[in-house]
């Protein structure tokens, strides 16, 4: 009997091109390859989609414009006009997370890989957002930013309890932001892998039951992929709003 099916094998990082700089392993891995594919896909989608530049948009142009408008409205609504300065960053973030999530759902055996299913990738993105937003806050408000942790109109005994809670919930932001995306992607793909192994295990006779469930689950995973990208971006806008305009 073959080895038991390991659903976590799909997350293994494999080196494609061995590169060693100094003592560091800077190999081009399958994770890096799929990041490049995501960037190329986004670039082709946006530039080729807008090539027509018609006033009445064609289909691809319509999609590219919809993506732009969606993120622009989100930034303007949640971070105000001052936040539109950071629209390129939020748009890049949203499109990268969205395309990484969606490309991970392609059922390429042994070749497919979900970039955002690794905590280090999502933590790098979330840490960038957190550090950037904090720097923006201190650059704009100086030390007055610390009044953010002291809510207005609260009696002072409650304030002694509330301020540490506010500080903790501020510093926990990069962790919740990254773990939300990572756990959703990892759990989703692990489930798909396990249910798929049931389909093959039960064979022709009873395999159709988990197969029907897999169809529904794949639809759910597509929705989750889009939703998690949207939530990542909109929380970035909300944190940006906190930094630019100090009130809660």
């Amino acid at each position, binding site marked *: 009997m073959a080895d038991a099916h390991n659903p976590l094998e799909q997350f293994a990082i494999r080196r494609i091109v061995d590169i060693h700089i100094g003592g560091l392993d800077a190999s081009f891995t399958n994770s890096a390859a799929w990041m490049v594919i995501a960037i190329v896909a986004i670039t082709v989608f946006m530039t080729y989609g807008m090539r027509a530049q018609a006033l009445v948009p064609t289909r691809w142009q319509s999609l590219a414009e919809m993506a732009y408008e969606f993120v622009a409205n989100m930034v303007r609504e949640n971070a105000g006009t001052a936040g539109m300065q950071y629209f390129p960053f939020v748009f890049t973030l949203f499109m990268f997370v969205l395309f990484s999530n969606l490309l991970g759902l392609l059922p390429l055996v042994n070749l497919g890989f979900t970039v955002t299913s690794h905590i280090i990738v999502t933590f790098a993105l979330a840490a960038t957002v957190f550090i950037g937003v904090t720097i923006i806050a201190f650059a704009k408000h100086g030390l007055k930013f610390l009044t953010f942790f002291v809510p207005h109109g609260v009696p002072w005994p409650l304030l002694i309890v509330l301020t540490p809670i506010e500080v903790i919930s501020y510093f926990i932001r990069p962790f919740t932001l990254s773990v*939300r995306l990572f*756990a*959703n992607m*990892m759990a989703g793909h692990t489930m798909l892998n396990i249910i798929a192994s049931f389909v093959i295990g039960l064979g022709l006779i009873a395999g159709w039951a988990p197969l029907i469930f897999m169809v529904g689950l794949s639809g759910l995973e597509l929705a989750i992929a889009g*939703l*998690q990208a949207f*939530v990542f971006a909109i929380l970035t806008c909300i944190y940006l709003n906190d930094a630019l305009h100090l009130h809660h």
Partner: protein
Amino acid sequence: MEVAAAKLIGAGLACVALVGAGIGIGNIFGSFVAAGVRNPAGAPKMFTNVLIGFALAEATGLFGLLIAFMILFVF
């Protein structure tokens, strides 16, 4: 008790956190449906907040799942 057995039990116990996720998500969408039936015109305006609320509630449940994975594979 063997470490491997304790790990499996710990991971199973950590998954109980997902009960909270289920209740929270059900709460959000239940409130949305109840309010949407009362005031259908206001429903599309609130749908964005519903999705954000769903993602945040799901996230807390998934923190429990993260601990389960950490118990199984990190410790």
